[in-house]
């Protein structure tokens, strides 16, 4: 059971997430050849002075709704994310809440892709729906497996259940699948096709200025939140020797994020037309088998 968080945590949450997203973006920039850590900041400033633009017959409110929904969904999902043993709200159905907020991103990207009335951005929208179809099934099974292991949908209970052994150790398949889907749900890294450069930015192709900042930073936020959620689900949350809980959470989150950012540079973008086969033929049965093993263990406990 986690302790209730103070009220100011509600205000602190978006700021902390933004800081974390900023740090990850800077780390990613530093890994590039000749790049500097200050670049994401400069990039944000550059977009900030840019005027908005509009394409003909665009549905502007729809586009704005879509691009704004993305960071909102990320922050809402993070409400159940514990720092140490405290989250802003440890809902009894925290895992379901997280998944529901993450699914809002589907709507966000689709609306952003549809709104500008532009082919390339529409293709970006299509791509994310295809991506959703591919990653969501194994993803749901993976997070269900973690909930099954703890016999609770409350994130705090999942963390408590890992006081002894991390779920990542005895549910490795579910952990691996979760990491893949964390990348896919934030359409980042090898799953960045919905905003791919080959479609001139895909769903973001027609966004400029503030709209673009909101959308792209929303993507970084979602990436950070999705990756950070693997810590309470599979890596024991705040459990660990010597250090306080919050420090363990931060450390583990940083390691997961650093791994994902590093791994991104080693592989090309995965196209859904190929990935969907892997997801449905290999990952889904694997996730079912993993859930079965966990269920048997839980029943015999």
């Amino acid at each position, binding site marked *: 059971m986690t302790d209730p968080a103070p009220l100011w945590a509600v205000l602190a949450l978006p700021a902390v997430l933004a800081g974390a997203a900023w740090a990850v973006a800077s780390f990613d920039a530093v890994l*590039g*050849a*000749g*790049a*500097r850590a200050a*670049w994401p900041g*400069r*990039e944000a*400033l*550059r*977009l*900030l*002075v*840019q*005027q*908005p*633009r*509009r*394409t*003909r*017959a*665009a549905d*502007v409110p729809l586009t704005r709704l879509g691009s704004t929904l993305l960071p909102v969904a990320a922050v809402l999902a993070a409400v159940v994310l514990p720092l140490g043993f405290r989250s802003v709200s440890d809902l009894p159905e925290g895992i379901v809440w997280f998944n529901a907020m993450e699914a809002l991103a589907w709507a966000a990207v689709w609306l952003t892709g549809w709104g*500008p*009335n*532009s*082919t*390339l*951005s*529409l*293709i970006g929208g*299509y*791509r994310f729906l295809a991506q959703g179809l591919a990653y969501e099934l194994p993803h749901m099974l993976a997070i269900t497996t973690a909930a099954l292991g703890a016999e609770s949908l409350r994130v705090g209970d999942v963390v408590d259940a890992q006081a002894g052994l991390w779920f990542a150790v005895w549910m490795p398949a579910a952990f691996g699948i979760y990491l893949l889907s964390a990348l896919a749900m934030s359409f980042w890294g*090898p799953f*960045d*096709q919905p905003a*791919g*450069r*080959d*479609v*001139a*930015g895909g769903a*973001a*192709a*027609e*966004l*400029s*200025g503030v709209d*673009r900042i909101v959308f792209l930073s929303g993507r970084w936020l979602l990436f950070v939140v999705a990756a950070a959620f693997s810590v309470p689900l599979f890596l024991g949350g705040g459990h660990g020797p010597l250090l306080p809980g919050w420090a363990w959470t931060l450390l583990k989150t940083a390691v997961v994020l650093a791994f994902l950012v590093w791994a991104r*540079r*080693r*592989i*090309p*973008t*995965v*196209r859904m*037309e*190929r990935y969907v086969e892997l997801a449905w033929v290999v990952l889904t049965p694997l996730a079912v088998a993993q859930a079965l093993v966990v269920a048997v263990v839980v029943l015999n406990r």
Partner: protein
Amino acid sequence: MELKSRLLRAATARPGVLLAVRPGATRERLFVEAELVRRGWPCAAGPASANLLVCVGEATTAEDDWAERLWLGIPAPKARVTASAVERAVEALDRGRADLLSGAHQHHVGRHEQTDGDLHRGHHEHQESPDPAPESGRHTHDDHNSHGSEHTNGSSAGAHQHGAHEGHASHEGHNGHAAHGMHGDHDMGVVAGLPMAARADDRDGLRLDRLHVPLGPVLADWPAGLVLRLELQGDVVQQAAVERIAAPITARPPFWNEPWLRASAGERVARGDAARRLCAAHLDSLGRFLAVAGWDDAAAEARHVRDRALAGVAATELTSSVVPLIRRIRRSRTLRWLTAGLGVLPSEHAHHLGVTGPALVADGDVHGRVLVWLDQIERSAGDCDAPGTLGAADVTGPRGRTDGANLPSQALLDVLPGLLEGAEFACARLIVASLDPDLDEFTWAAPPVRGPADD
């Protein structure tokens, strides 16, 4: 005011650059690309995220239309410069940055650029008049120079709904005003001045919208000057037609074929220089392919090695930087998994269409063609300092035989429509990148047999 100018200075310290490369300007493109990397200025994927439009190569009046559309699609603050020669490229970039800061660019460009008044006006008439959408009165017809961005820019919208009209969909595929005549072809109703898309059966027999989308000539990691007229359903290509934008004919041989063309004209060309050029040409194609495949890290490395090769580093040094790159790409199972089976081009078919380069040797899919590049890069990197001169019999350039009845890239363009039909958008881009036709070849004054300048 002080704060505002400092803010603007910081914000435009790294302007997003949209490169509009004209055919025949490979030398200038390579220089500008390297310069942008050195400065750390990002290359924008499209007009929306750009500040600075850099036109590379000599301008012709015929292409003003697409350059103009591109320009209108870029939101303010923006500037436009032309890098027409390597020597002037650095100065052009500096001027672009200065124009961004001063804010004088819009007027400057509007009045003084090569755009002749007629084209300019015609363009705006087309853009504005059929636009009944009173969206917000935020723009008037007069402020288009300074607020091109807010214009609904026929562009994106056009490409989506409009049959044979144009758009930037792809950042301007406009080849002239001819296409406007096709407005009458549509009887599907009109939205915001744009005809609705027609429908047709897709590959599963569903009736879906068919969008006519011009792809190119300005698109990130795209062969300069190429325009593909695609018929898309969803993101599946149902039909593709190849076009080239008009380009001035020059006496300067195309950069990548230069050594072989010179040799066949009787000049003495060192074998090492030819190997170096071949190595750099394939590294350039490889960098483009990897960027399209979404492997930015490897793409940046390929381009870095390419620049080193062109800078003339010794063969041993070049080999030592080529080998790890090649090994990394060859060993990538993900790349194999993602590109195997795409764009299969059997060698009989390739031969029949006159293909003579790596695409013929590969006798297979996208991945096979990349592997052929890798082999040739490795071999030619070792030969960079080879003694001797190129014989009259050495005629095989990076894209095939330079002495044939057909230009090597003409054959590659002929292959494209067949390979693209039925491919998904991302696959189509990979197929184009794996063939990487070089449209510079068409700009040379005396090729053996020249294709039509414009279809």
